[in-house]
Structures are given as C-alpha cells and as structure tokens.
C-alpha cells in the first residue's frame, strides 16, 4: 500500500512531540511525515526561554537532535507558514506557495501573546515574549534601555522579567490582579512570592491597570495607570496571557469555541475527523491548556489514534513546578480548595520566605492539592501522594516540616510509592517503567536511565525523584554506585589525589608516594592500565611536579606526554613551542620558519595563538627542540593535560578601545601556570575590554578588563559541548585576581574526575557558582591557604620538560623509531598539498607504493 501523507502544521514543542511519538511508533512505514514550521528554527524549549539571556544558546534550547528529522525522512518546510487548508481537496498551502495534500492533518499552531487594547500599545519599544525572534528583538533594543517593564505577572511574565533582569535592566512587573501568578498561587502565597522577587531587585506593582503608553521622540517613555500613578520606562514587554491560534481552522470552518480555540474530542479530533488539533490551539471541554505538559499528552493521544491505537485525552494535570527569578513556585491539584468540604493547612514563614499550603479532604486523610512558594522540594513527593490517594499521616503538616524526631518522612520516600506512580508526567513514565529499565538493562548511571526511559527529559521537575529512585533501586540490587578509577584502583581520582597529597606531609619519607608503583602497592592491584597510569602520572605531577620523563614516570604517560609532542594519524608528531599570550618577535617567527623548512614540517597557526609544526619523526624531535631552545623557546605543553595557552588581544597597548593591558596580564598568567598538570587541559584568555576579542568567556578561566580592574570568568569551554564561562568575581586588582585563579585551579585539580574539564566539573558541583564563590572568595572550607601554597610550589618548581630532556642522554635514548637501527619508519609517506607536505591517505599510499615497486 502506498504511504499516506500526514501533515503537521506547526513545529513548536507540541508539534515536535507529536512527530517524535509517531517516529517512535514506527509510523514512518505507513506515513509520509510532513511539517510546516513558521519560525526560522525548528522546535526549541520555550519553557526555558529566559535562559537564552543567561548563557544558553540556541543549541542548548533545541529539542531536536541534529539530523533527527532528516534521518527519519520527515519533510520539513522551515520558515514557511501554512496559510490555507482546503478541506474539500484535502490539501494545505503555504506562504511560499507550496501545496501539499494530506490524508490526515494535525494542527499544532500554538498560541499568540495577548496584547491588551491599551492606547499606545504599538509604540516603538513595545514587545511580546514568545519566540527566539522576539527575544532577539528584545535583546537588541534593550541595549539602548535602562528600565524595562513586563505587563503581566503570570508564569510567563515572571520568566520574561527574569530575561530583562539578565539583560541588566532595572526591571518592573505590572500585574492587573491583586497578586502575582493569580492562576497558580493564592493571596498569601502571592505575597511571599512578591517579597522574594522584590528581594532580588525586581519591582512588583500589583492591582495596576495600565491606561496608556506614552512615547517621547518616537520611543516608549512612560506608562500611566488607572489610579493616576505612572511609571517611567524605556521598553515594555506584554505577557498578559495567550490566545489560541485558530485562524486557519476558522477559515476552513472547523468548529471553534465561543472564546476561541479549535474544538476537539477525546481523541483530539476536530469537527473534521481527518483533522486533529493539539496543544495550545486546541479547546477540550471548553478549556485551553496553556502548559506544555497537557500538550504533550494530546500529542501522544493523537499519535495513538492515527496509528490505530485506542487512547483518549480526559483533561490533564496542570500541576506545575517552576523556578522563577530564583524562587521556587509549585501549584498542584485543587490548589484553591474548591472541592466541597476541602480543608486547608498552611505554613507561612516570612523569615525564610516560604509558603506552603496543603488542601486535604474533609477527613484530612487524602491530599487534594497544594501550593508551595520559596521551597518546592517536596513537590514531586506530594504530587505522588495526591495521585495515588495515599492515606495521609495523622499530622499532615509533618509532610511540610522537617521530621519530628530524626529520619525523614517515610511516606515521601520514592521507594514507598506504588509501582503505578507516575514519576515523569511530561513523558508519562511510571515508577515501574523506570525500575524495569534499570533492572532489565543493568543501567548503572543516571544519564542512561534518562536516555532509556525519557524520564526527566521534559520539564526536568522529576529529576530529583528519578535520582532517588535510581539510587534506591541500585541499593536494593546490592549494587554500590562506584566511581572507581578502573579495575586496578577501588578509589576515585579525587580519593587518589587526596592519598598522594596527604602523603606529602608524612614525616617518614617511606610513607610518601612519589611513584605509580608505590601507589599501586599501597592502594591498588594488578599492573595498571591506560586509564589509571596517566591519571596517576597527572596526580603525581600536580603534587610533586617532577619531570614526567623521569624513569619511574615515563611508562605512565600517554604517548603525547611520553614524547612531549602530539601524535598524528601516521604516527609522527607535531611540535608547539610556547608563545606566551600570543606575543612573538619577528626573530622568533624567523626561527620557527627556519626550523620548519629544515625539517620539512607542515606549518599551521593554532586557535591558541601559536604555531604548530607537523610531521616530525620521533628521532627528529630532540634536534628540532635543540634549535628551538637555543632560540629561547620552551615547551608549549600542547601534548599535556596541562595549561595550554592564555590568548590575548593587544588591549590598551595598541587598541583604541582597550581599557587595560591584556597582553601583559596574559603573558604573566601563562608564565605563572605553564606546565601545571590538571585532570584535563586548561585554556585561558584575557580581553582588554568588553568587546571580548580574546574570547575569554569560552575558556576554563577567562579575564575581561573593566575600567576598574579585571572580571574573572570560570568554567567555560569550546569543543564538543560549548559552554560559556561564568562570572566568579568582578573588578579585581591583579593580586586578588591571581590569588583567586590559584585557588580555583588547585580546587579543580583536587576535586575533578579524570579527564573532566572545568565546565563538566562545574555542572556537577552542588551549589554551583554560589558554592564556588564561597570556597574561593570567602574561604568557607578554610583551605585557601593550602591551595595557594600548593600553587606556589608548582610555580617555584617549574622546569621546561624539553630542556630537561635534551640535556639528559638517557632520556634521549627513547627518541628513535628502532632500538636496533637508525633507519626511519619506512611507512611514513607524504604527499604535497598547497606547497606543504601531509601524510598520504590510504588510496594515495597504494598508488605511491605501486609506483615505487
């Protein structure tokens, strides 16, 4: 049978979820999946949109794995809006003039922001908040603004306020109702929420009806309210609710609700059985759901029905948990106690800034709903109690308070939930789904559990529960969660580091651990491997800083470290001398050119402002380095899990915008930390002004000059998963800056896993940046003096490894291809490309060897 056409209009979160469900069901066998996406980008996470201003990129927000649609043959029309549905001929026409016939049609057109009919609402400087395009427009305009106002204090409005705050604006929220988040939170909760939000510097104005937006010189200038007050502002964002996008459905005469919304039945079908509607555009039993979760449920129901599986949409749970402007807010079930006989129990703590309300039935034995503000950690568990109608303990308030006499409340423990408990409501994953996945597949890490079950991959609210369940399940199975380095050491890298580090202060020298053999003998077993040996070598270097090619250490090193150069695909090496800060004299450039010419090396500029010379055979390396050292170069440690480079711009020495001498600082930092071995490579950069030409925010530690000093950013990286560095401290003088970097680097070296870069390490740190600031700036652990002393030892004992090697004939012995011959490796074959030599590819080798024989 020929495939039928299934057209989806709209590629937002729900439209994508629908396609995802169809693909997961194997529906591509019977259906051609076709989708129109009005926005220039495919589905992304609208729920976390404000993250866009907080370092998140488009790539972080996307919901679609790269290549997912292509791999599954989904026909995409991106940036092309569907403008007409012809139900008689069963086809859809787009703005670009494409017409596609459908057998089944799914409308996932979403909603649009409601802009109240206020005088001046279209003035220059007014915006809505829904798409990344909206955000880009807001961000661009905000550059010229000091003050921003959000009209609407609901969920999205507060998200939007967060965005404005992240853009550095003085932020105000104006709400027409007497409290914030009127749909989710009651008056008492709203009051606590208002206080908490004001405490972080966002002004909240409730019960304000905006009457007019006044412009001056063609730009928004102020707004006036019904109570004759006014508020000056440079820009306004409307977030006063949403309206379903039902125009397409209206035009083709599908049934529409009195106040908008495409009417659907329990199968998510519209009044035309071949047309479905899902998400915020759909009206189910006179109700529009403005949350993503019900939309996801509808997507699943529609996919089921189209695939011939019977399932129905019977309304959806609109329980929500969010972190808005840093404040937890959760609302679930019958939050406003509308059930007859329902009773309320509230605990309001104005000191801690928390408000917790439980709504229970007449007999106080079952939970009907609740509200949590300021601390929503109990949300997941309470939701389970409600869904499973668990009988409550005699004092239900215990569920909200710390345990009365030690031990946590057993009812709230995930182990005690029934198997049917729905843990992840976004993806409808039950407790037994998760437990079975863990048991059947022998899963031993959380990431696999999430990948396998999809639990925790929606809004993320259930991740703490999934984590607890995962731990409980492993514990029950008798599996200890281990982070042992490898089969030779029943210790983590951190533990081994600690063992070596604490041996330093041992009074008996025999107790000090200098070598891998000593470490293995005391704490390990077997002979070691390519995992534990380089890790131990790195730890020993971070602690003792002995030359890594000394006899007890040389066999531990990965080949790059073992030959102090970077191995390439044909077994030859590349050479990168250190060029501190990227500053290089003409004479040094000439020497590099001469060496490259003499040894016929391919030359390339690196991303770290250095020069990489490729194609050196092992026997050539010492000769090359003899020349380089003579000319004043030293090892660049491009081969090591060590400090690589500190990039810089020219800063105030040349640049007309520079405010500090970034080059001098970069050189000083590179010379200070050169040779420092760490769990992974370290990169740094210094920019001389806020234009950030040195790209410091993509580095493990990056410094940006300010008028008053230096801003220090940490834990960024480029590479496979780019992540922006975050501000640790601002406007530092040079001495303080160096002290903080010393502490930061040594703390990372102490506590990171093997091959864990600072960004990954940071992402796992409980407490995040606040915690790091306490440790590094406030010395909350009382270790800063130790960390500084450890770094001082590293700096004082630095020695160029190449210099140490070419002056030591025993070390040089290893730099030959054959132990019994001076011949070269005959299999290294080169071809010329663009005037330089590169290794031959396999097909070229075959031709060349035939030519020779």
């Amino acid at each position, binding site marked *: 049978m020929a495939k039928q056409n299934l057209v989806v209009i709209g590629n937002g979160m729900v439209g994508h979820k629908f396609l995802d469900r169809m693909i997961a069901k194997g529906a591509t066998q019977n259906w051609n999946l076709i989708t129109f996406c009005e926005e220039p980008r495919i589905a992304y996470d609208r729920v976390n949109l404000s993250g866009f201003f907080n370092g998140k990129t488009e790539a972080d927000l996307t919901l679609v794995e790269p290549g997912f649609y292509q791999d599954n043959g989904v026909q995409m029309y991106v940036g092309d809006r569907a403008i007409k549905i012809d139900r008689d001929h069963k086809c859809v026409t787009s703005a670009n003039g494409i017409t596609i016939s459908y057998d089944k049609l799914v409308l996932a057109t979403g909603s649009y922001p409601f802009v109240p009919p206020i005088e001046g609402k279209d003035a220059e400087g007014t915006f809505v908040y829904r798409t990344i395009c909206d955000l880009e427009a807001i961000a661009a305009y905000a550059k010229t603004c000091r003050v921003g106002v959000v009209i609407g204090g609901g969920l999205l409005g507060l998200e939007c306020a967060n965005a404005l705050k992240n853009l550095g604006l003085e932020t105000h929220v104006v709400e027409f109702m007497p409290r914030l988040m009127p749909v989710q939170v009651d008056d008492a909760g709203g009051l606590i929420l208002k206080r908490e939000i004001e405490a972080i510097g966002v002004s909240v104005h409730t019960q304000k009806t905006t009457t007019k937006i006044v412009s001056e010189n063609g730009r928004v200038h102020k707004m006036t309210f019904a109570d004759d007050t006014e508020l000056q502002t440079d820009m306004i964002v409307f977030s006063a609710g949403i309206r379903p996008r039902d125009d397409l459905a209206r035009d083709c005469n599908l049934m529409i609700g009195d106040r908008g919304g495409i009417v659907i039945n329990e199968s998510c079908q519209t009044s035309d059985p071949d047309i479905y509607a899902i998400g915020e555009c759909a009206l189910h039993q006179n109700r529009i759901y403005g949350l993503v979760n019900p939309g996801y449920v509808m997507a699943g129901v529609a996919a089921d029905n189209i695939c011939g599986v019977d399932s129905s949409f019977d309304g959806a749970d609109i329980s929500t948990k969010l972190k808005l402007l840093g404040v937890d807010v959760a609302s679930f079930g019958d939050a406003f106690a509308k059930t007859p006989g329902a009773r309320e129990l509230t605990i309001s703590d104005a000191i801690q800034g928390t408000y917790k309300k439980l709504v229970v039935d007449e007999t106080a034995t079952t939970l009907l709903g609740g509200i949590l503000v300021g601390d929503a950690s109990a949300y997941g568990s309470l939701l389970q109690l409600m869904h499973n109608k668990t009988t409550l303990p005699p004092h239900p308030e215990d569920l909200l308070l710390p345990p009365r006499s030690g031990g946590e409340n057993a009812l709230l423990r995930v182990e005690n939930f029934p198997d049917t408990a729905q843990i992840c409501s976004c993806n409808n994953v039950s407790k037994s789904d998760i437990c079975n996945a863990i048991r059947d597949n022998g899963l031993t890490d959380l990431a696999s559990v999430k990948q396998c079950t999809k639990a925790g991959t929606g809004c993320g609210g259930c991740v703490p529960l999934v984590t607890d369940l995962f731990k409980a399940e492993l514990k029950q199975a008798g599996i200890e969660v281990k982070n042992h380095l490898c089969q030779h050491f029943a210790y983590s890298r951190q533990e081994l580091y600690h063992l070596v580090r604490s041996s330093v202060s041992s009074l008996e020298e025999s107790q000090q651990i200098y070598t891998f053999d000593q470490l293995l003998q005391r704490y390990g077993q077997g*002979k070691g491997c390519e995992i534990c040996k380089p890790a131990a070598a790195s730890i020993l270097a971070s602690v003792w800083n002995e030359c890594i090619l000394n006899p007890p250490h040389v066999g531990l090193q990965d080949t790059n470290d073992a030959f102090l150069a970077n191995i390439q695909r044909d077994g030859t090496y590349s050479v990168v001398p250190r060029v501190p800060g990227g500053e290089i004299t003409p004479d040094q450039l000439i020497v590099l050119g001469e060496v490259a010419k003499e040894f016929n090396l391919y030359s390339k500029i690196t991303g770290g402002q250095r020069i990489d010379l490729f194609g050196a055979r092992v026997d050539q390396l010492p000769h090359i380095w003899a020349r380089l050292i003579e000319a004043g170069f030293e090892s660049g440690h491009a081969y090591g899990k060590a400090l690589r480079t500190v990039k810089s711009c020219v800063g105030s020495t040349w640049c007309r915008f520079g405010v500090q001498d970034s080059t001098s600082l970069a050189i000083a930092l590179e010379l200070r930390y050169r040779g420092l071995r760490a769990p992974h490579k370290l990169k740094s950069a210094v920019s001389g002004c806020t234009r950030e030409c040195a790209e410091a925010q993509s580095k493990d530690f990056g410094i940006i000059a300010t008028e008053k000093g230096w801003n220090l950013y940490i834990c960024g990286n480029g590479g496979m998963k780019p992540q922006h560095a975050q501000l640790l401290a601002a406007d530092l003088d040079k001495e303080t800056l160096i002290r903080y970097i010393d502490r930061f680097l040594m703390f990372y070296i102490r506590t990171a896993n093997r091959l864990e870069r600072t960004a990954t390490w940071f992402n796992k740190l409980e407490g995040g940046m606040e915690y790091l600031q306490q440790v590094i700036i406030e010395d909350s652990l009382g270790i800063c003096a130790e960390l500084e002393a450890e770094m001082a030892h590293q700096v004082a004992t630095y020695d160029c490894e190449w210099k140490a090697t070419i002056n030591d004939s025993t070390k040089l012995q290893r730099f030959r291809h*054959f132990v019994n011959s001076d011949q070269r490796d005959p299999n290294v074959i080169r071809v010329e490309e663009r005037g330089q030599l590169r290794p031959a590819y396999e097909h070229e080798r075959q031709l060349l060897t035939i030519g020779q024989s």
Partner: protein
Amino acid sequence: MQAITNQSTATRWITVCALNDILPNTGVCALVNDQQVAIFRVGEEDLYAIANYDPFSSAYVLSRGIVGDRNGIPKVASPVYKQNFNLATGECLDNAEVRVPTFSVRVVDQQVQVGSTQL
C-alpha cells in the same frame, strides 16, 4: 609467564638490544628481518613481542602504547585509538576479530633476542 618456548631448531635468535635499553613497563620497536617488532618489558623480567603495526590506525606505533593488565592478562593499549592487545597472544581485547602477529623473545646474558620465525 614468558613468551619463550622451545621452538623448532629452525628458529634463529637475533639480538636486538640490551635488557637495560627497555625501561620496565615500557616498549621499544626493533627491526627484525625488515619487520617492525614491538617488544615490551612488563615488570622487571617478563618480555613480550608483537607486531608494531596497529591495524586500527594503520600506523607502526604499538611499541609506544601504555603497558598494563586487564583481569590479569598482560596487554598494551594502542597510543592512537586506545584498543587493547593481549601481549601473549596478539588478540585484540576490544574486538575479537582482530589479532596482531606475535614473536618469540628471550633474554640471554642480559641481551634481548627475537626469534626470526613468526609464530
């Protein structure tokens, strides 16, 4: 265990270097009848010899790998893509279909000798 066996009389032993030329727990590469042989010294005493050619990277580099053991089996990890090879049998421990040739090797008077017939 040592990969030295009483080979047939046809085996010719070729001295390649002194034992001290190989640091404990490292490898070297020797040229034996135009073949590249990777010789490893595991601990002080044990010697193993396998082909230097790494079939995964097509480069002659195995002698530069890190020596160790997996579940007691002595092995080397390729320095390029890190596949492990059983030093005694040449089998790849990460891909049962791959195996590299092995050679016999022994120490006589502190000199390392490789058997010229491939096992």
